[in-house]
């Protein structure tokens, strides 16, 4: 299956290392969410993907061979900051970009019509970009990335500054593109959105990909964790071996089970101590996972 492989990218600006050995892959038809704090290397990675920056080492491959100019021209790209001519009309601007991507005049005109209609911009085709609201400029930007029916989509912060309706529209479009068989890579700080939309997620920190995979893979810890909503005092667990209490919040207790099958004893002990209202495997949200990963001490994962 076609996939986009990012292989050990390293890039420094002057003395500052922006990326070190960053690797991950995005499969065709998959939405990949790229999260990380500001300055962690997301934009640098995307720029290298687009060939706008040269990596110091490492490479990006598509269907097994390194990205060349022709493949890169088949990428739909949405740069982090709005990248449009402020004083050019929406329609002219989109047509120009479509021409740069190799569409002929007629095809460019059709694509402008199609995408402005799809993204609710038909009324604004004749307006200068600078007269549009930020949200609408973002839609124009998305249209610019999609005009040439790209083989790969790379979107840097596509959701920032959008109202809920536009977020919904953007999500739909991304899912449709993925359904068309396109690998979709986007970065975002809106973790709930990433969690909802993405098939797989990569967390980058200080230029290193510290975790990547499906959400379930990311949630998978060395020892399973369980949540018990039941007896409030912690003492009821004292008799169970191979179990560690991670957190107690009133009636809710989170435990880590280090011996296979010990969770059954946990449940029995809990029921013996009082009524149990809930007993379930812990499913940390992406926000929790992200917080854990990002707050981890630098010294530890720097050496892994």
């Amino acid at each position, binding site marked *: 299956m076609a996939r986009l492989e990012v292989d050990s990218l390293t890039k420094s600006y002057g003395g500052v290392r922006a990326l070190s050995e960053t690797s991950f892959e995005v499969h065709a038809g998959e939405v990949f969410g790229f999260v990380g704090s500001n300055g962690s290397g997301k934009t640098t990675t995307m720029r290298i993907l687009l060939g706008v920056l040269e990596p110091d080492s490492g490479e990006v491959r598509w269907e097994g061979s390194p990205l060349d100019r022709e493949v890169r021209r088949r990428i739909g790209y949405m*740069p982090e900051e709005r990248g449009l001519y402020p004083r050019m009309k929406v329609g002219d601007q989109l047509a120009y970009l479509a021409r740069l991507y190799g569409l002929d005049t007629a095809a460019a005109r059709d694509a402008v019509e199609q995408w402005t209609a799809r993204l609710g911009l038909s009324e604004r085709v004749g307006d200068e970009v600078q007269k549009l609201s930020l949200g609408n400029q973002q839609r124009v930007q998305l249209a610019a990335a999609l005009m040439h029916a790209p083989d790969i989509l790379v979107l840097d912060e596509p959701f920032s500054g959008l109202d809920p309706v536009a977020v919904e529209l953007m999500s739909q479009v991304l899912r449709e593109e993925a359904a068309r068989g396109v690998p979709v890579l986007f970065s975002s700080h809106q973790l709930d959105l990433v969690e909802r939309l993405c098939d797989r997620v990569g967390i980058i920190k200080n230029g290193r990909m510290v975790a990547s995979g499906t959400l379930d893979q990311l949630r998978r810890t060395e020892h399973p964790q369980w949540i018990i909503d039941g007896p409030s005092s912690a003492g009821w667990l004292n008799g169970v071996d191979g179990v560690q209490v991670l957190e107690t919040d009133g009636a809710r207790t989170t435990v880590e089970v280090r011996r296979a099958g010990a969770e059954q004893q946990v449940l029995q002990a809990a029921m013996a101590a009082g009524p149990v209202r809930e007993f379930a495997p812990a499913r940390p949200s992406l926000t929790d996972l992200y917080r854990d990963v990002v707050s981890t001490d630098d010294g530890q994962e720097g050496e892994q």
Partner: protein
Amino acid sequence: MARSSTWSMVWLVALREMRTRVLSKVFVLTSGLFVVAIVAGGAFLAFFGPDSQEASRLGVTPEAVALEPALASVAAASGTELEIEHVEPGAVEQQVRDGDLDAALSGSLPDLEVTVESDLDAALQTVIVAVVQQEALAGEIADLGGDPAAVAQQVADAEPRIISLDDAEERDPAQVAAGFVAGILIFIALMGGGQRVAQGVVEEKSSRVVELLLATMRPWQLMAGKVLGNVVVGLLEIGVIVVAALATAWGFDLLDASSLDLGAVAGWMLVWFLVGFVMYALLLASLAALVSRQEDVGSVISPVIGIMMVPYIVGVSIAPWNPESTLVEVLSYVPFCSPFIMPIRIALGTAGTMDVLIALALSLILVPALVWISGRIYSNAILRTGARVSLKQALGRS
């Protein structure tokens, strides 16, 4: 589908530049103003200028027709333009009053009458008086048994030799004016075009659209397209002005007695504009790529603007009045200065084809190096937003 040939990208960029510039209000307005100013200036010169008077129209009645050859030859000798028309004696007064004729001669010698509306034009008076005197003299000579024609020939040949103490030859005012105008035009076109290129580069950088563009093409293609597009716009701008000037000059007959070859001057001016534009645009585009905000464009390109001022000031303040000055001649060969000064020297008629070709070659030799350096600076700097990129950073490895 993927028509990405190198030059089609350059052409697409150039087309956009042309369209946005030429359709802009500023361009239409300034070009319109220039045309109006040129035509109005030409009209002013034509109607009020001292040496561009129209021919005097002199009517002669059948009685006075015999004087026509003498009038024509005297007028030609004294440089007065004269049109002679035949009128019936009865129509003289009416035609003079209507302004169809400046003056009319009637009667025959010695009782010649000149009819004018109010005053007799000084030049016309000189001609008529000379003819009358010549005819009277001829009569006397004939009476004395001499040959009037031989005497007239002697008189015509008797001309003093003029010794000019000032060595410099007298400049044709039309050439001085053309030199002056050529200097100003080239300056306006290069300065305006160069700044447009610089601002365009920063517009793309500050709006980050350059990132999108560079995902589809190489930096040098973008830069080449920008320069090419603006060259065409500049040519159009200067072309509009030159055409308006040529049309005005011909339409108002301003250049009759001039040794100025306006066509050649205009042609060379376009050549020098092209050379100067390419060189300055490359330089300004690469410098502009160093900054990320429109406000900083001025400071980063000011050294180049300063360099442009020197040949311009020398060109328009010294060259037209003293074209043989050493400074002017030397600077007219120096690359970056020659585009401003050579056209002035060409207009003044002090530069031979060889001089022009040598200066052109000296500039063209530099172009490949300039393309290389500016391409490198531009490529390395255009994506580094934020603080101003130093030249050293831009020239180093990216």
